[in-house]
């Protein structure tokens, strides 16, 4: 299998469109015949990441690389960044305001979920510069 690379721009100003990139990625993986478990893991990880880019940053980009062994995801934004990554990774920790919670998000489960559903997870963030999340899901044969 050859390596496939996909790139998506996530607009930061439209909550209703958040998830479009994750949807496109999910459909692509389905078309490729990737195992349903792996698709579910990638879907949750990209969607939580995409939602974070929309509600906590001002949008960003998602790069996907699919090869025979794995699906690699790189999510980048130029938002405000995360001052305390260890704290942000804790289940239930959120800075989301009530208006975000009223939309069904902001339970503080996004980052822990992204880590839980992927085989490799790395988060780099710089205050005032932005955030980069790298994740990998292995494809078992």
């Amino acid at each position, binding site marked *: 299998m050859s390596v496939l690379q996909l790139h998506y721009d996530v607009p930061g100003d439209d909550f209703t469109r*958040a998830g479009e990139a994750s949807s496109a990625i999910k459909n692509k993986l389905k078309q490729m015949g990737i195992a349903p478990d792996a698709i579910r893991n990638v879907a949750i990880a990209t969607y*939580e990441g995409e939602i974070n880019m929309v509600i906590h940053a001002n949008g960003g980009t998602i790069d996907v690389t699919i090869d025979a062994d794995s699906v690699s995801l790189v999510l980048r934004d130029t938002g405000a960044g995360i001052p305390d990554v260890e704290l942000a990774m804790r289940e239930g920790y959120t800075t989301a305001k009530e208006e975000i919670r009223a*939309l*069904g998000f902001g*339970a503080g*489960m996004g980052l822990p979920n992204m880590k839980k559903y992927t085989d490799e997870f790395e988060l780099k963030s710089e205050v005032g510069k932005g955030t980069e999340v790298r994740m990998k899901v292995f494809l078992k044969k």
Partner: protein
Amino acid sequence: MTIGDIAKLLDCEVLCCADRLDSEVHTACGSDMMSDVLAFVKDQAVLLTGLLNSQVVRTSEMMDIICIVFVRGKKPDESVVKLAGEKNISILSTSSRMFEACGILYENGLRGGS
């Protein structure tokens, strides 16, 4: 049970994908927090919710949920119904409240799943 059975049991209005009422479903979850659905749901086929925005459909798509039941007589915007149609997700609306709707479905054999 089928999506059609749910529609009958909860006296639902079918807003989308009436052609899929024959689809079998065995498990369901009820939540207004999409974050919780993403965190805790495993293989549930039905989502009961009082939340009306497009992210209910997107969350369902990610979790392979094939039927959304809006409780308390709520109906989403046309754009949300259209999005669900594109994803082949059935949309039902019942006047029952969350607790009541879940109870009726449980009583008739639908389960929470793992």
